[in-house]
C-alpha cells in the first residue's frame, strides 16, 4: 500500500474504515518514511492546537447581549409575550419546595451544590463574581452564567455547568447568605459539546415566574459591584 499524504491524514483523523486502517498500520511498520511524515504531521497538529487555544469568554461581551436581545424578541413574538404571575418570594417558597424536590427525585443531586441547594465552588464563584457570558473552568468543572434578571428587588441568574461529561442548567437566586438553586435540569452532552435534547420549558417557566427582563451589562455590573444589593 502506498502511504500518500491523503491516506496518512485520514489515518491521523480517524476517518478510515477499520480494514483500511489496519492496512495502513501494517504498511507503516515497514515504511520508515511514512512513519516520519506521519509524526511530523502529528507534531504540527499539536503545535497548532497549543498555539491557538479556545479563548476565554469575554466579560461584558456585546455579542452575548445581542444574542439575548435578538432571540428574546423572537420569543416574545412566538410565545405571545411572557406572563408574570407572582413575586420572587412566592417563587422561592413554591418552586424550591416543589420543582427542586421533583427534580432531585428524578435525577439525584446535581454536581454543583450541596444537599441544602446552596451553590458552591466553581458555580458559586461564577454566580457571585462574574458577569453574564463569563465562563470559569477549574478542577474539571466549568460554569457559565447565561443571563441575570432582577425583579421585586431580588436577583436570579440562569447558568450552565459541565462536570465529568455531565451537563446541567439551572436558575439560582441570591439570598443573604449566598446563591440558592431553585431549579435545575440535566442536559446531555455529545462528543464533549454542550448539547441539550431540546429547550427547557421548565427553566423558561421558572424565569417567567421570576419576572423582569435580562439586565443590560451596565445594570448588571452595577448590581454586581454592590454585592447584589438593590439600589437604594
Amino acid at each position, binding site marked *: 500500500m502506498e502511504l500518500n499524504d491523503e491516506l496518512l491524514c485520514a489515518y491521523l483523523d480517524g476517518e478510515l474504515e477499520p480494514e483500511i486502517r489496519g492496512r495502513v498500520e501494517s504498511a507503516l511498520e515497514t515504511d520508515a518514511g511514512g512513519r516520519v511524515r506521519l509524526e511530523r*504531521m502529528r507534531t504540527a497538529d499539536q*503545535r497548532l492546537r497549543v498555539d491557538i487555544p479556545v479563548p476565554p469568554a469575554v466579560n461584558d461581551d456585546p455579542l452575548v447581549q445581542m444574542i439575548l436581545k435578538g432571540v428574546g424578541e423572537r420569543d416574545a413574538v412566538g410565545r405571545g409575550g411572557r406572563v408574570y404571575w407572582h413575586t420572587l418570594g412566592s417563587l422561592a417558597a413554591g418552586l424550591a419546595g416543589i420543582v427542586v424536590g421533583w427534580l432531585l427525585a428524578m435525577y439525584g443531586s446535581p454536581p454543583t451544590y450541596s444537599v441544602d441547594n446552596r451553590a458552591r465552588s466553581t458555580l458559586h464563584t461564577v454566580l457571585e463574581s462574574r458577569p453574564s457570558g463569563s465562563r470559569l473552568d477549574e478542577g474539571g468543572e466549568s460554569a457559565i452564567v447565561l443571563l441575570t434578571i432582577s425583579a421585586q428587588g431580588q436577583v436570579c441568574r440562569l447558568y450552565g455547568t459541565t462536570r465529568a461529561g455531565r451537563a446541567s442548567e439551572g436558575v439560582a437566586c441570591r439570598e443573604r447568605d449566598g446563591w440558592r438553586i431553585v431549579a435545575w435540569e440535566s442536559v446531555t452532552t455529545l462528543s464533549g459539546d454542550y448539547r441539550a435534547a431540546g429547550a427547557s420549558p421548565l427553566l*423558561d417557566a421558572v424565569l417567567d415566574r421570576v419576572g423582569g427582563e435580562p439586565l443590560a451589562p451596565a445594570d448588571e455590573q452595577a448590581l454586581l459591584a454592590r454585592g447584589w444589593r438593590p439600589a437604594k
Partner: protein
Amino acid sequence: MTLLARELIELLPRARRFAWVLTRSREDAEDLLQGAIERALRKASSWQPGTRLDSWLFRIMQNLWRDELRAHRRRAEPLESAAGVAGSDGREETMRHIQTAEASAALAELPEDQRAVIGLVVIEGLSYQQTANILEVPIGTVMSRLARARARLAATLGDDAPRVRAAK
C-alpha cells in the same frame, strides 16, 4: 431563554477562534463574528435543535468571509502580533490569549481554502463530512486540501520543538 441562545453563547469562544483563523485579524474577526451572529439570529428558524450548532454557525461564517473576500478582492493583513493588541475592552483580552507564535505564522502562510480546512478539521476537530458541508465542497476536495496544507505545516512545524515537548 431558548436552546439556540444558550448554545450560541456557549459557542462564542470557539466561533471567535475560528473567525480569527479565517481572517487573521482581530478587527476582521470581530466583524465577521458579529455579522455571523446577526445572520444566525435572522435565520434562527432554519437551525434544527439536536443538530450541531457549531457546523451551522461555521458555515455562516465561512460564507460571509468568502463573500467579503470576493467583494473586496483582498487578503487579510499579515498576522497580527498579540503584543500589538491594545485597547480597553474585553475583546482584546480574549485576543491576547490567542498566541500568535510560530505555529500561527505558519498557518497564516496557507492559502485561504487550506487554512479553512485546517481550522475546521485540525483545530475544531470536525469530521471530513462536516467540513465538506460547511465549505460546500466534495469530501475529496477536503482531503486533498488537508493533505496539501498538512504537508506544508509539517515542513515548518514538524520538528518536535522544546515548547511542544514541554506541553506533552
